[in-house]
Structure formats: C-alpha cells, structure tokens
C-alpha cells in the first residue's frame, strides 16, 4: 500500500513513497535516516518521538505519515545553522547539563523550539506544564527546565535588542 508523499523536512522538499500503514517516526527514521526521532513507547506516552509539524509538537509515533502531505516537519537534524553551528537551544542544553542518556533530548529540544517561538515569557511552572509530555528518567527535569528557561529569556532579550 505505497503512496507518494510530499512534505518539507528540515527545510527540504521531499517526495517519497511511504506505506499508508507507516507512522511518521518510522518514515523519518527509516526512509530519511533521521534517527534523532526516538521511539520509547509507540503510544504517545513518552514524548521521545516528538517532532514539529508546521511548528507544533506532535508525537510522530501515533501520526500516520500520509497525514504529513503538504506539511513541514522539523527534527533536531534541522536545527543546525548552515555551517554546522548549533542553535541557541542546543547550546543551552549542553551548557546547562540538561543532557544525560540523551534519549529524550531531541524531542524535548523540539518542544523547546515551539515554546521559545511563542516569543513570550513563561513562569517556571508554566514551563513545567509545557514540557510535561516528555518523560525523562535521568535528569529529574531540573536542568532541562533551567535550559528552557534560559532559552526563553535569551530569546526575549534578543527580540528586545532588535
């Protein structure tokens, strides 16, 4: 049951044949080699497979690939700058020691991209709610929140400076 799918992935137009039974996580991983998209539960309960579709975080494990027709998908492979420079969010995660085993990291970074992109301040409690769709067993979320908090603040400071 193959179907031709057109979508933009990390800024690049893709045209590929997918099985209609495939979830987006499998298509991204197996057909496009974007293995940052992790599978931890396959039922939308861990958040490791989170990608952004048109800027919104979704669990790509329970999203049929054919639904992405005409849409724009972002994975962390798409965050680096043209010369390989890291995005401010990636840098913050590194510097705040928000990364341990790294399995939840790509998904949470994408949720952070969505959060930061709202261009508004959040309380720490609001941030807790916004990242609550990601399970992490290593960090207790402490340094992840520090990193996201910092990204939100730095982004607003940049906006104000401009």
């Amino acid at each position, binding site marked *: 049951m193959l179907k031709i799918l057109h979508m933009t992935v990390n800024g690049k137009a893709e045209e590929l044949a997918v099985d*209609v039974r495939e979830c987006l996580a*499998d298509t991204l991983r197996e057909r496009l080699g974007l293995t940052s998209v992790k599978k931890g539960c396959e039922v939308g309960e861990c*958040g490791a497979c989170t990608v952004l579709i048109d800027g919104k*975080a979704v669990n790509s494990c*329970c999203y049929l690939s054919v639904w992405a027709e005409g849409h724009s998908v972002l994975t962390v492979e798409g965050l680096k700058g043209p010369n390989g420079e890291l995005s401010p969010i990636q840098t913050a995660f590194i510097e705040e020691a928000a990364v341990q085993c790294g399995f939840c990291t790509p998904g949470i970074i994408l949720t952070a991209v969505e959060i930061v992109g709202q261009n508004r301040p959040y309380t720490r409690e609001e941030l807790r709610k916004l990242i609550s*769709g*990601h399970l992490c067993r290593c960090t207790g979320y402490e340094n992840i929140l520090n990193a996201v908090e910092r990204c939100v603040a730095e982004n607003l400071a940049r906006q104000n400076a401009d």
Partner: protein
Amino acid sequence: MYDIEQYYQAQSVADAVAALGRDPAAMPIAGGTDVLIQTREGRHAGCHLVSLHGLGELQDIRWEADGALVIGSGCTFSQITRSPLLQGRVDMLCQAVDQVGSPQIRNMGTLGGNVCNGVTSADSAPSLMAYEAELELQGPQGARRVPIGQWYTGPGKTVRGHEEVLTAVRISPQNYEGFSGCYLKYGKREAMEISTLGCAVLVKLTADRSAVEDLRAAFGVAAPTPVRCPRTEAMASGRALDEALVKELGQSVLTEIQPRDSWRASRDFRLQIAKELCRRAFRRAVELAGGEIRA
C-alpha cells in the same frame, strides 16, 4: 507499522459518509491518538480506516448570529484552548481540554474523537454535559442534532450510526451566557493522565451575586458514562452562597453517582474524591462568578 488493512482519506464529510456506507467494517479516524493506539494493541488489528484527518470543514470555530458557539469536531484540544472566540465564553471547556494527555497529544487529538470514543473518562465530557452541548451529525439521510444528554448509551457506546460523522459541537447562548464554571480533573499525576475522576460545576448567580440561580454538576468516571446530577442541581437552585450549601453539595452528589471499583481506584476512594472535587469546583466557579461564600 500499524496493522491497517484498508485506508481511505476522505476529501469531505460527504465523502467520508459515503465511504463509511460502502464498508460496514470501516471506522473513522481523526487525530489518531485513540484509534492508532488501539490498533497497535491488536484491538483494531486489520482495521479499515476512513480518515477525517485534516478536513478543513471540520476545523472551524464559529460564533453564530444567535450567539451559539459551534466547534468543528476536527478541532484539536490546543486549538480550542487558544481560541479567542471560546475564551471568555466557555472557559471551563477551554480549561478542561487543556488537561487532556500531554501538550503533544493536545496538538493531535480532536474534540470530535474525545466525544465519539464514548468513554466516561473523556476530559471534555463533563464540561459538555454541563453546557448542554448539542452534537451535529452528518449521515446519509442528512444532518441531525443530538443533545449530549442523549448521546451516551453505555461505556464506549454512543448513538452515532455507523455511517454518521460528528461534524460539530454546538453550545447555545442560554447555556453559557452568565455562567462561570470550573472543571477539576483528578489523576495520580499532574500530566499524561487518564482521569480517575473529573468534575465540572457550572453556576449562574442571582443578579446580586448572593445566591445560586442555576447550577449544573457533571462527572466523568463516576458512572459507566459521563453523568449530570439533577437532584443536586435542583437542590442548589435558589440557595444562598454559604458553607452549608458547599457541604450539602458534596453529600448530595454522592447519591447520584455510581463509580466502580477497579484496580485504578476503589469506589469508596472515588466517592471521597467526587465529594471533595465538587465542593472545590463549586467554590472556584462562585469565585469566578464574583460571588462570595459566607460562613
């Protein structure tokens, strides 16, 4: 890969109705957060799907001339929470669907799916019961409206016919204007949770804000289907805002609900939570309505 035997992407509601009509085994799918998970579990292995995903005509939120709010069944939970049309009018619903699953699930799951899966734990259900929402269905014979009070026929069962598509949820002005409400969800954790018990309390106060003019209390997971508490509502009508009423509300709802014992929670525990949530939701609703509860 999901064990999907047949897949059809509908191009319109009419197309979906026709596709469902052609295949007695077909089932609709919208956000996918229930259907796909159940397919993986094996419950719908080999399923035939008619996809409503992405249908623009189901994603509209309208405020009609008569004041009715019409929410397309394909709206995601996060669309509803963020809708400027709904905020300030049906805040309790906006807040309730903001407690479904996780942020990602709220970007995927739809109000229509939450209503059509017919489960008592659906976070939108108690609010929709309290707002006396009407459900708009499109079928081969045309459109019809079903009051939500007549929607549920049993656990996971509704009056929706096999060929019918839920197109919208309608809330009339007489059911939200002048009301303030609060939905409290009780779970073992604060996110990614299936409701252990959910309670929606909607109140309209008298003009001087000293007494209840209209009160509606609805529960999820307090019975096989979402339920209202008509006797409690009647008892509260016209009563002054005082602690005696708060206390009585908690005791009264216990006579109208039938939670069950399960490994997730005992009946007695759910009764205790229902009593307490109902009181707290009432206090909050009164506060939102500008009232004050006196000793």
